[in-house]
């Protein structure tokens, strides 16, 4: 086994408490990120599902001329965000109401005059169903003089997007705070390791070891600590996911790319904290 790898692994044996604490702090920070990641991912999935059903409905004035309506339908269909435009006439609207709202059938049957307006039901292209795109399309459709009202569920759409933003910000903030603490603990562990091995480092330099060779075991130690911490976090996050998913609410597990990213972030965090500490403390020996 190469010297650097052997020494890096030996660190776990030499100072298990400190290395364990470093692992635990990385695990805790990534666990927090993982939990919020699950929340953020599930909100995103919900939004995707909701977005696939997003429609803009424009109600037309009764006095709208058929020619103008037909022209507008063609124009709206040509919007880059729009997938398809259905024209629902007043009669069709009433028929649909009778069919869908069975409990009010008697009311609709007794009507002398059809009170329902004609409408455009506008479906948007995938990727164009975000709040901003929906609002933009609704605004343009609303500018036709014969359009009386445009509906697209703006209130709840805004709330879902806000929730996603809050979850994302909380993930970054809390995860970031714990990551900083983890980095500080790793730096302390490396500092202690450097000073515990100062005689060895002095001899290494004496006999012509390069500085990169001297640094390597410490960098690997940081990398392994980070990786071990992120694996611990993954196990803990998955455990809690299993508990919550069945008992409280149906959740989806985060995708493999997110997991790989989490492991990479943990390993990088350990490596970077170690690199900074080693760079600083080796100068003191």
């Amino acid at each position: 086994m190469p010297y650097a790898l052997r020494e890096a692994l030996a660190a776990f044996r030499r100072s298990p408490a400190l290395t364990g604490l470093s692992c635990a702090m990385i695990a805790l920070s990534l666990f927090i990120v993982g939990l919020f990641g699950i929340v953020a991912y599930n909100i995103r999935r919900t939004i995707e599902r909701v977005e696939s059903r997003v429609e803009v409905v424009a109600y037309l004035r009764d006095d709208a001329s058929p020619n103008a309506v037909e022209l507008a339908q063609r124009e709206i269909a040509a919007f880059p965000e729009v997938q398809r435009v259905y024209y629902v006439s007043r009669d069709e609207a009433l028929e649909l109401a009778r069919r869908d709202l069975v409990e009010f059938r008697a009311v609709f049957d007794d009507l002398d005059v059809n009170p329902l307006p004609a409408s455009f039901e506008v479906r948007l292209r995938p990727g164009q169903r975000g709040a901003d795109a929906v609002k933009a399309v609704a605004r343009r459709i609303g500018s036709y003089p014969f359009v009386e009202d445009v509906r697209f569920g703006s209130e709840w759409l805004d709330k879902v997007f806000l929730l996603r933003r809050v979850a994302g910000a909380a993930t970054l903030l809390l995860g970031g705070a714990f990551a900083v603490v983890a980095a500080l603990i790793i730096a302390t562990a490396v500092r202690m390791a450097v000073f515990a091995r100062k005689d060895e480092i002095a001899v290494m330099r004496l006999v012509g070891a390069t500085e990169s060779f001297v640094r390597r075991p410490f960098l690997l130690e940081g990398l392994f600590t980070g990786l071990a911490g992120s694996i611990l976090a993954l196990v803990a996050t998955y455990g809690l996911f299993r508990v919550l998913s069945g008992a409280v609410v149906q959740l989806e597990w985060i995708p493999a790319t997110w997991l790989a990213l989490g492991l990479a972030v943990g390993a990088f965090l350990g490596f970077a904290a170690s690199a900074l500490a080693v760079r600083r403390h080796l100068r003191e020996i």
Partner: protein
Amino acid sequence: MIRLSHVCMEYPRTGLALDDVTFMLKKGEFCFLTGHSGAGKSTVLRLIHMAERPTGGEVRVSGYSSTRIREKDVAMLRRKIGYIFQDFRLLANRTAAENVAFALEVTGARSNVIRSKVARLLGHVGLASKAEALPGELSGGEQQRVAVARALAHEPLVLLADEPTGNLDERASWGIFELFRGINASGTAVLLATHDLDLVRKSPGVRLLELDHGRLVYDSAAVAA
């Protein structure tokens, strides 16, 4: 091979440690560097080892200049220099063989090369039977022999010895000195810093440099010339 030209070394707290020191050490030469405690002997050795750079003048060792050497070349230079200290500087938790092997290991030597070389080096310093002993189980003289074996691991061009007999009794001191003479006979230059004048007196014909308060006050080679 080693040339100090008008070397000055000044420390911010303690002031001038070396003042305009100039001398040359040829390939395969044996030389004593003497002077009272604090005269600047260790500073000369550290400068040759490029552990520090002079504040004035130039130190040249085997083609490397103190004014131009890059950090990564320092490691390469040190593989050409063996360094011995008064306090041996062995790793207490490693056996004699492991201490010698360490010098080879950290420079990337292969394990089969390390094994055969360590056995040969320990045999050379007369410690083949103590290969598995920890430094704490060895006498001062034996520990210094392990340090010598380690210093020879890279077959250096020069051996720098900083008061190598300072912690040893007379018999052990003489043994170490004889070891240095043998190493020198096989072509390695030796620069031995000592204030043990007995050792110097018993070695007629060996070049002598004397430092006093950071100045080179005597060079037997210059006098002879």
